[in-house]
């Protein structure tokens, strides 16, 4: 699925529901159920299909990302988007970013805003550690479950 064509993507963890929708050709594709090639990990399907948007959109800030979607290092954790919306790194264009590469964050640190239909959602990191990478550019759309920040825990 090319980035430009990706208009909707949803993953539900419990009971595993995967929804893909492409509005541009008028042919929504909706799949659900746990039938993804014998994998019992719902996110395996997600990672197989959609790692590209996050990684490629992050070009200006990201160091060359390792190809494997799974983190080898157990101390690496990702802050993911809880919803579909637009990603903002600061509360206003003139303001400082909530978090930059190297910023130390705690569980309650606000790391970004995801806006969806005039709801400005301040996202808390839930993890304590140091921001290693910001995986998406300011102002870009994000999907549910999309990785936003790569964090080294500790």
């Amino acid at each position, binding site marked *: 699925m090319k980035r430009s064509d990706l208009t*909707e993507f949803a993953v539900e963890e419990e009971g595993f529901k995967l929804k893909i929708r492409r509005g*541009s050709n008028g042919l929504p594709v909706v799949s659900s159920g746990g039938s993804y090639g014998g994998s019992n990990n719902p996110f395996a399907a997600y990672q197989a299909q959609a790692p590209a948007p996050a990684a490629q959109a992050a070009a200006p800030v990201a160091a060359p990302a390792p190809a494997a979607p799974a983190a080898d290092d157990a101390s690496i954790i990702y802050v993911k988007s809880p*919803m579909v*919306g637009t990603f903002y790194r600061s*509360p*206003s*264009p003139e303001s400082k970013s909530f978090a930059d590469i190297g910023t130390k964050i705690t569980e309650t640190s606000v790391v970004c805003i995801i806006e969806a*239909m005039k709801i400005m959602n*301040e996202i808390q990191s839930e993890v304590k550690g140091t921001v290693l990478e910001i995986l998406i550019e300011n*102002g870009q759309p994000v999907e549910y479950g999309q990785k936003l920040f790569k964090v080294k825990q500790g």
Partner: protein
Amino acid sequence: MSAQSSELLILQTLLDAPMASDGSPGVVSGVALARTLGISRVAIWQHLEKLREQGFTVESLHARGYRLAARPATLHATLIDAYRHPGQEAPRIHVLDTVDSTNDEASRRLAAGQPAPFAVLARRQENGRGRFGRVWHSATDGNLYASFAFKPQVEPARMQTFTLWMGVNICALVASFCRTAPGIKWPNDLLLDGRKAGGMLTEARMDADRIHDLVFGLGLNLAPPPGGWPSGLTPVATSLAEHTGRPVDANKFAAALIGRVFDAYAAFLDGSYRKKFANLWNGYDLLRGRSITLVQGNRTFSGVATGIDDEGSLLLRLADGHTDRFRAGEVTIAKK
């Protein structure tokens, strides 16, 4: 009965007193008040003094009783309470003279541990905000700034349509209160006759699993600024008073607004809103069928708006005939 609720009851009784035949405010006897409240006439008198201190003009008429000759014209917490329906749940209401932004004030109160729900209303905002710090013109007394704090213990994805649902409820309230037909411009602008009369902004704090708290903010022009609109805003801004041709009682409106917002919030959380949402939206949707331009970051899309989907995304039929859905963006309506 607390002193505060006694004052409220006295105020409600005075407000409800049938108008005299010459149109002057109705008179309530001190004896009747004392009997209704089960307190002495001296205590009644003391409560009336308290109301006077709060800006109410209570006249004493010899051998007849009391009447409310004048009430505060600007936002007033006691008066708002008095206008509220007795059956409705009464969240705490904070009315402030001046605040940087009612949303910020509500957020600060949440951060300080104040239990939700509650409402913050202001007569003036020094720093009213639209999205991303855009300044919302607000240095006047004729307007209403209200923020409502909630702690919905639900997963973030459920809140997608919250601002839209609140928006159509505000439209319905304005329609019944002012007998005028407002419209909503997706996702959060309230318009009267093509001019902006208000806007909404919801701010939430959440992590991946749940929402911690949420502040819904509304700015609504009840009346034009005392000196008229700044010249740059004349063609784009309006107010309820200008549109309907008569003044709007800010306190009555605030009381109705608070009731409506809390009812709408309850319906949103229990899911019963779903039955009504699409119909309400279609009734107030200003974009449907119009040629619009939507700007999303550095990308621009033009087409004809065809409504919203059940997740609140704007549907836009593009030039190539395909319909795309958009969750965010700035909409401009093309000139007819």
